[in-house]
């Protein structure tokens, strides 16, 4: 059986197997284990989030998957190809954390540059550049040099360059780091759109709320080791508790519900109150729609 294939016989987009990465610290003969016997896989078509605090080994894992680093032990494969195989890079679009592209190039020139590196040319390339500028909503800034782009715009042009050769896998390292809530929401919407269009997305982040919103499955990395992994719903649901959200419930009805709960042995009311929106949602609502924040 193909070890990279999942139970349905499909080849995984990413297959990391017993990956260990050790760095030596200068001439002191001291070593740091950045990633320790890590195994996980990303299914084709899903959004997988690798989360963990700074220094947990997320970026190192990504670099190994990208072929920018060689594993000390174990292996990383992309659609069945060894991550060091250059053909694997045709299948990957990568957006690094805080990307600094060539500031002297405009948005369109940047996309043309990366497109040509992927062997694209002529009308196909021009069409792709136009599509991507539209996708990331930067058509109006296509001829402006990147030196004049905001952080959010840089992230979006970075995402566009990651998609230029139409890869099957998109790897995003802290895609919303340092971006304001509106820019962050735009990037999140783009990730969800990519998933809808069949791309596989593998992202690293320590912004847990955002990971929760976009990921199908997550892996929690801590000190180079995988602590928990699985479908998001399975990981975060509290099986012993049930929440019911009511709209327009009268005080009488609420009283009856409390009474019913009290009567039932083994059941207790844990919490009651009004659901809250997040501060981020509130901010976006005010900034984007000019809504009155007062209820």
């Amino acid at each position, binding site marked *: 059986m193909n070890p990279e294939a999942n139970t349905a016989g499909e080849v995984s987009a990413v297959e990391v197997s017993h990956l260990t990465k050790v760095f030596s610290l200068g001439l002191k003969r001291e070593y740091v284990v950045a990633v320790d016997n890590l195994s996980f896989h990303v299914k084709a078509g899903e959004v997988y989030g690798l989360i963990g605090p700074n220094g947990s080994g997320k970026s190192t894992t990504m*670099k190994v998957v*990208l*072929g*920018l*680093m*060689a594993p000390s032990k174990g292996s990383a494969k992309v*659609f*069945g*190809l060894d991550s060091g195989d*250059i*053909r*694997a*890079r*045709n*299948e*990957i679009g*990568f*957006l*690094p*954390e*805080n*990307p*600094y*592209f*060539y500031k*002297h*190039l405009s948005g369109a*020139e940047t996309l043309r*540059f*990366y497109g*040509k*590196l*992927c*062997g694209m*040319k002529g009308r196909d390339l021009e069409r792709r550049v136009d*599509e*991507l500028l*539209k*996708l990331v909503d930067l058509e109006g800034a296509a001829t402006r040099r990147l030196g004049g782009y905001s952080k959010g715009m840089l992230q979006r042009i*970075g995402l566009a*360059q*990651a*998609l230029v*050769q*139409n*890869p*099957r896998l998109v*790897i995003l390292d802290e895609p919303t780091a340092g971006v304001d809530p509106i820019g962050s929401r735009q990037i999140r919407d783009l990730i969800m*759109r990519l998933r*809808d*269009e*069949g*791309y596989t997305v593998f992202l690293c982040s320590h912004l847990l709320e955002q990971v929760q919103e976009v990921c199908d499955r997550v892996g929690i990395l801590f000190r180079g080791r995988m602590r928990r992994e699985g479908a998001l719903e399975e990981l975060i649901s509290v099986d012993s508790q049930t929440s019911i959200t009511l709209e327009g419930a009268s005080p009488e009805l609420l009283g009856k519900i409390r009474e019913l709960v009290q009567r039932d042995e083994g059941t207790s009311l844990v919490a009651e109150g009004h659901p809250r929106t997040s501060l981020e949602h509130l901010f976006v609502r005010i900034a984007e729609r000019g809504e009155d924040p007062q209820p």
Partner: protein
Amino acid sequence: MSDEAPPPNPEPDRATPAPAPGARPVPLFSFGRVATIASGTVTQLVRMKTFYFLLAFAAVVVAAGNFNLPATPAKELSMIKKVSFGTMDIFAWLFAIVATALLIPRDQEDRTLYTILSKPVRRIEYLLGKLGGVLVVVGVSLLAMYAICAVMIGAREALFVAAEVEAMTADGRYSDAEIAEQVGLIRQQGLRAELGIAVLASFFKAAVVAAVTIFLSTFASSSLFTIIVSILVFLIGHAHSMATSFWLHETNNSVFVQMLVKLIKILIPDFQLFSFSEGIVQGEPVVYALVWQMGAVTGAYLLVFLLLSLLVFVDKEF
């Protein structure tokens, strides 16, 4: 089963086409990718306004051309050429070092390298593209500097010839043959096609310096370190014959010193080889066999330093 026609394709209007299935082949080597990186490097250097140094060069040439030296016209022209071509040579190798040293470490610091190498780009293509881009800019700069020199030398030559002919004719003691001989002496030091070979020699030297710098920048931690070490290598490379005569032919030197000098002679290119251009600038005849030989030596140095760079760069982790 229903006989109804199947519904139209419900696929939404995609902004991006569906991802292609299967691994796409990547050619073993692509001149297209090298050219893309090279043209990106040229654009980068041009938009960094590096060509502004040509203004400084033009100022040096104009200043050299307007010194009124107490010498014959031929000697004055010789002096203008010496200063202009000497300055051109310095600008070329210094530019090659600084431009090359800024490129790779900067790409690494800015993480631009991550996005480039995460595309299907081989590392040799990246190195060749960077070197190629620098050499194009150095070549264009040298041509521009040569054009500036040519204008100045040509103008001064025409001025000197006219003045000399006028003075000798007015004197009345000189025959046409003597005037022609004097004009010939001035023209010998004037603008001649052979001066292009001196420019080519400067380009060869700058190309080798750029290749050495690219090798150093593959393992250097900063641009500053690369620039300093490259200049040091360049200076040591001008002391090959001195080192040979002083340390290797002196019998009282230890075996260790002799081995060290031999090692340095192997590792550091002999930049004195390119000084054949000085004779050309002074009006000596061009030995074309030597020019071809220098071209071959330059090619060999480029190949060796690119291979060394690749050895370091191919397994480098970012």
